[in-house]
């Protein structure tokens, strides 16, 4: 089930360094939300705070409220492990587990939750997830081969299959196409369109055309100045953002006058 995310007054720190300041937004359920902005503006950092992956870095912490389905993810007593099972993530570089086969990679997350599974049930989930990631036809004859043997684009789709196999409510994607060629990128973008029927998708991208192609809403992050924290400049429907943005800084960035 897709769920919306309500973000209010979020500050994100690395130790004492304030990296992202004062973010407020509502990410709609069952839609694709893209974050754009120059390098170092904190969009990836913010994305990682949505499934509590930010705090994996020593000293990193988050202030404020991020509410999914009525539950504040940062309330004391909320287990980050449980959060990550509800909010899946796809990384910048494809990272299938190198010692596992394609089949085991897809099931990796489920095995954590469910323990033993019937072989037929496991087969069904693998097929469903790989079909969901548009990879089934390419790999169905070599499911027991290592995942690292696939091409970069296939590996990234394998990682998406692995993430959707656990049926999260929300799927985060951190520049999922930045290491891929245009054809693989196009395959992933098509996939994002299909996935948004089932999941709330949040994607960070450096590619503004990509944001325009795949997203329903767009958030523009920027730095006030070097060394200052990043902040959310504007959050609007993508159509409005690219046609008639509210903020002149957004327009300058989108039209290529800076960044």
């Amino acid at each position: 089930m897709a769920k919306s995310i309500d973000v209010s007054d979020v500050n994100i720190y690395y130790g004492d360094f304030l990296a992202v300041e004062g973010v407020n937004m509502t990410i709609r359920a069952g839609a694709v939300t893209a974050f754009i902005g120059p390098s170092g503006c904190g969009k990836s950092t913010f994305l990682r705070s949505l499934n509590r992956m930010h705090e994996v870095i020593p000293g990193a912490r988050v202030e404020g409220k991020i509410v999914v389905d009525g539950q504040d993810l940062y309330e004391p007593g909320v287990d980050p492990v449980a959060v990550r099972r509800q909010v899946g993530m796809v990384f910048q570089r494809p990272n299938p587990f190198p010692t596992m086969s394609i089949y085991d990679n897809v099931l990796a997350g489920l095995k954590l939750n469910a323990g033993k599974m019937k072989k037929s049930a496991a087969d069904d989930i693998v097929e469903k997830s790989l079909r969901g990631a548009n990879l089934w036809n390419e790999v169905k004859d070599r499911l027991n081969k290592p995942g690292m043997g696939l091409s970069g684009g296939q590996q990234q789709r394998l990682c998406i299959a692995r993430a959707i196999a656990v049926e999260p409510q929300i799927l985060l994607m951190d520049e999922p196409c930045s290491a891929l060629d245009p054809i693989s990128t196009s395959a992933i973008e098509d996939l994002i369109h299909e996935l948004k029927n089932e999941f709330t998708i949040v994607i960070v991208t450096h590619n503004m055309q990509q944001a325009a192609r795949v997203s329903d809403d767009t958030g523009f992050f920027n730095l006030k100045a070097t060394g200052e924290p990043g902040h959310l400049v504007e959050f609007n429907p993508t159509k409005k953002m690219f046609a008639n943005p509210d903020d002149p800084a957004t327009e300058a960035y989108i039209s290529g006058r800076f960044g």
Partner: protein
Amino acid sequence: MTAPTAEVEDASANWATARAGVGDRIFAGAARAAGLMILAALAGVFIFLAIKGASGFTKPAEVYGPHAESFVGYVVPLLVGTFTASIIALIIAVPLAFGIALVISHYAPKWVAVPVAYVIDLLAAVPSVVYGLWGAFFLAKKLVPMHVWLHENLGPIPVIGNLFGEPNPAGRSILTAGIVLAIMILPIITAISREVFSRTPRLHEEAALALGATRWEMVRMTVFPYSRSGMVSAVMLGLGRALGETMAVTMVLSVGFDLSWNIIATSSPTSIAANIALKYKERSADLLNVLVATGLVLFLMTFLVNFIARWIVGRSERRMAR
């Protein structure tokens, strides 16, 4: 950039790599020499052992006496002693070392991990004689109650009970020797496995965490598979040290010649290395040949164990690479 003036003659491009050639050749030669050196040293040791030890296999019965009549009868108890002590050491040290390495690399905050790692490394710098003294005069006595407890509580159990027969009243059993060996091989296994654990790519660790893995599940999914080869290397180096260690065993163990399953017995067969150290001074020329022959056996056994371990690791990796 300024336009090239007519006066300055263009240096004609030099397509031969004369400059890089010399340095590269020296370095390649040095690296190759180092590689060949280790092979030559290994072959040299083997040839020495084979030549000097060959006659040791077939001496008259009295040379092997008073406790054995043939080379096999002489070396088998020693082999058993060697491997018993080493296996006990590995059983204790390996889980402990992996645990410590994991804490240092993945669990403890930096201000704990760094000093702990340093202390563990220091353990490796303590000479083995010191461990031997400590084991013989301090640890053995302290372990007497443990010997009694093991005998009383585990002795009656079938099969396992055979390992815990009559206890050694002074605590100088092969179990104590194994424990001292375990402490000696702990630092090397810890240091190497810590290094390989911390080399696990962050990307893979985050992939596991993002799927909702706990810290331990993340370790099992990414750190262990990634480190498997290095972990085996660490264990093999530790085993190598345990097999070849003389002082700790010589000083701790009260030596006997009867084979038994009892690892807390009053006396147990010593190890090959300790036996050589003990007998070397009082040798006859014949006995020296026998000692060298036992050394050859140890050399081959170590080689074999290493080879088998490598093969097992390699097999699982080859399976994945298919």
